[in-house]
């Protein structure tokens, strides 16, 4: 996001205004998130907050709603985010968008019927895994194991052994960007060779390269066009390689985070253009008035009045140490 | 004659209870001294003060001329003080032989480097032989590989005596060595103690068995309420009506 802010300010800013983000780490902890958001609305009096981590959003959404501060979740995909209040409008498609596509692909394209689910036991993992299960069973599939692990757990041996004992023909993983690579590695190390599907949190090119053939059969979803589809994304990835010596993990999520700065730019320009002060209620109103945003890395993004975002889902498969595109799905 | 152990003005109080009051005494190498007195006279407490189990409030303890008053227990042991206990105390987790092998004053293989030092095995062998020799003296060789907890009280007492003898210093404090001992072991222990004294140890024995003390000891000290009331031969002491009344309460 800081890159986006720098680029915006280096041009003409947001309608002449300079964007000045206040960045505070919630440490992915709900309690810390509440404290941070409270400070932002009470002390700093910001009109809009961009925030990640489903559990943190769930905890701090009431603060935003009470203070009428626009809260824009990004990168978090718990389906409950759509119902977290009048002032919470996600800029990121929730799990019921891409997880459904993953379930359908595994069931219909790959012909799988016995799925094991391994999920992180938090807001995102619990509800994302539930969506997968509901869709899978609705399509006539069988859930043979439904195991979870705690946030910050690093040893998934027990859950994986249980999965292996259930003899699935497919595994769905719903973790986060931090634990998904380890979970995948441990799944393979404990002899689980079946295809693994996961949402974009498992998009980790470095891990796939490291695992090599062990990663083959990993299918991840992406909610944003890749470098092959978009020159802007290609330049963005190159910027990562130049400055960080690597590609970003969970590239699609970083694209959304980047482009959220442009959403805020559009809101500011809308309000300045109509001589309205930059308050939370006005920011919200501007969001709903604009609806569809033209963004550099995502293209057109529509934030619906029902607090959802729809998107094309791109599927990628790991083969020979690299992700290869499988296609775009809606 | 060499003074192996000397105490000067040794004093200790626990609140209002006096366990030692200005005790002064000398124990010569080669001599056996009996320490007699009624229960609660402070005899075992005297041993505790000499060995450092209990720190003295005042006074001095000199071991072979070295002021050991402020030294910790293990340092006094290394200066050459060995003792047995009224209630037998052996290391339950070690075998009888191991109990003896860790008891000498100077220990080999004390540092990690010594584990790989040349001659370590020879040193260990000699130590083992010495320990077996001590067990032989108390006729406990057959029990070398047993744990103390498997043996009778009397056997444990003999083993604890053998362990004390592993300290090749010249001060030996025996606290009621004959309690629960009778028969051939009785004479064996007497002979053993005499032999140790003849070998140059200063021996001090706390014992209620007056005939044992009279047979064995060159002299005796009479203790009462933390004080040494009188010194002399055992016969002289028990001939005193005053001391007899204090001892037996009649």
């Amino acid at each position, binding site marked *: 996001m800081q890159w986006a802010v720098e680029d915006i300010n280096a041009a003409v800013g947001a309608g002449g205004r300079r964007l000045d983000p206040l960045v505070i780490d919630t440490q992915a902890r709900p309690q810390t998130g509440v404290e941070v958001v409270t400070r932002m609305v009470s002390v700093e009096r910001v009109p809009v907050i961009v925030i990640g981590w489903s559990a943190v959003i769930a905890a701090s959404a009431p603060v935003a709603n009470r203070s009428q501060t626009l809260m824009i979740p990004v990168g978090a995909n718990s389906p409950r985010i759509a119902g977290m209040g009048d002032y919470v409008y996600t800029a990121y498609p929730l799990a019921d968008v891409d997880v459904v596509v993953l379930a359908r692909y595994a069931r219909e394209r790959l012909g799988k019927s016995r799925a094991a689910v391994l999920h992180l036991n938090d807001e995102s993992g619990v509800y994302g895994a539930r969506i997968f299960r509901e869709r899978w069973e609705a399509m006539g599939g069988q859930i043979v194991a439904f195991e979870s692990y705690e946030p910050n757990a690093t040893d998934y041996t027990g859950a994986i052994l249980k999965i292996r004992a259930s003899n699935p023909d497919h595994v769905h993983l719903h973790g986060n960007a931090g634990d998904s690579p380890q979970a995948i590695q441990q799944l393979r190390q404990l002899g689980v060779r079946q295809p693994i599907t996961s949402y974009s949190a498992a998009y980790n090119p470095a891990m796939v390269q490291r695992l090599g053939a062990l990663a083959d059969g990993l299918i991840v979803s992406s909610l944003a066009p890749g470098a092959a589809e978009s020159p802007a994304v290609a330049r963005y990835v190159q910027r990562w390689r130049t400055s960080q010596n690597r590609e970003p993990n969970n590239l699609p999520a970083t694209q959304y985070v980047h482009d959220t700065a442009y959403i805020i730019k559009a809101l500011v320009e809308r309000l300045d253009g109509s001589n309205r002060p930059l308050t939370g209620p006005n920011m919200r109103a501007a969001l709903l008035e604009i609806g569809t945003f033209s963004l550099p890395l995502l293209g057109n993004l529509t934030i619906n009045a029902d607090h959802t975002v729809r998107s094309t889902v791109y599927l990628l498969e790991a083969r020979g140490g690299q992700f290869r595109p499988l296609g775009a799905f809606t | 004659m060499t003074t192996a152990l000397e105490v000067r003005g040794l004093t200790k109080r626990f609140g209002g209870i006096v366990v030692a009051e200005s005790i002064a005494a000398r124990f010569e190498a080669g001599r056996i001294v009996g320490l007699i007195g009624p229960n609660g006279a402070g005899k075992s407490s005297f041993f505790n003060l000499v060995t450092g189990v209990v720190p003295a409030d005042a006074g001095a303890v000199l071991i072979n001329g070295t002021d050991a008053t402020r030294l910790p227990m293990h340092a006094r042991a290394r200066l050459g003080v060995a*003792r047995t206990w009224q209630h037998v105390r052996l290391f339950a987790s070690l075998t009888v032989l191991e109990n003896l092998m860790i008891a000498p004053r100077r220990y080999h293989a004390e540092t990690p480097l010594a584990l790989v030092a040349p001659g370590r095995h020879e040193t260990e062998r000699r130590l083992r032989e010495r320990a077996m020799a001590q067990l032989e003296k108390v006729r406990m060789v057959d029990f070398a590989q047993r744990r103390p907890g498997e*043996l009778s009280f009397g056997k444990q007492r003999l083993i604890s005596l053998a362990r004390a003898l592993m300290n090749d210093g010249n001060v030996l404090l025996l606290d009621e060595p004959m309690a629960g001992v009778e028969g051939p072991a009785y004479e064996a222990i007497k002979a053993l103690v005499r032999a140790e004294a003849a070998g140059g140890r200063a021996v001090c024995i706390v014992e209620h068995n007056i005939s044992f003390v009279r047979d064995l000891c060159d002299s005796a000290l009479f203790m009462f309420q933390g004080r040494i009331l009188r010194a002399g031969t055992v016969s002289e002491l028990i001939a005193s009506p005053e001391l007899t009344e204090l001892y037996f309460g009649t």
Partner: protein
Amino acid sequence: MLDPVILIQVLWTSVASASFQVLFTIAFALVLKVTGIWNFTQPALMGVAFYAMYVAVNWFALPLLLAVLAALAASAVLSAGIERIAFRALRRRAEEPITYFIFTLIFAQFVVFVLTLLFTPEPLYLLADMVPQIWLVGGVVVTSWDLIAIVLSAGMTAALWHWLRATRQGQFMIAVADNADLAEIYGIDKERSFLAAMLLAALFTTAGTYLFATKLALFPELPLHVMLFAVAATILGGIGSVFGAAAAAVAISVLQQFSVLVIASRWQPLVVFAILFIAIILFPNGVRWRGRQRIADGRHSEDGGAAAASSVTTQD
């Protein structure tokens, strides 16, 4: 019916996973045996060891072996400092056990707090590449990590056993563990044995941390959770029995992993809690495998003090 391959896999994986738990348990049980202290500073040792390794490898690009040695040095210094500065002071003041308990707990929390400030609560991986070699043996997955873990933990356990039984310092430690003051009377410097126990704890904790860190990620608070396993194993194996505790650690690990065949894996941590409660309430002296032994302080545990009056003969 369960596939035998699965059962063997669970058994193999649980034994391998037990390796670092065995080392942590031995460290904890040994200090308890020798010093009598429930050493809850051990999570601090684990944290310091891990982050020393992490810094050495990731900040200074040192080879892993040097990083482990650096970790060992750091944890040894910390352990020695705890013994010499804190425990010795508490002993000299003849403090109650509760004081030791409070101190060790607060110290561990303090170190966790400092490590969190320095390294954030994010789980960190020691190595960028932690993919071991994998073999399939009759359908059972065996990794190079498994083999290293089992060999290292078994080897260190055997070495400790030999050291305690066959070396003078080891026997001093056993004597001090039995009765520290009595050991002093016989010329054994108990403070030295206490220090040796703490240094050995640092060694075993570092080794366990190395195994843990070459498989899993670690964050500052994690050692506090790992500690519970060592406590449960120590109680179950019998307080004062280092190798009983090690065996209990293996047993608990196997039980915990096999439990997933009947319960959901998210309930696995409760297995350790359950064992801890059962051990405290039903087996406070550990699970006994032999008949009770007579106590070597002149008393017989079967006949009370009656033997004090028994006569001595030279033959049984």
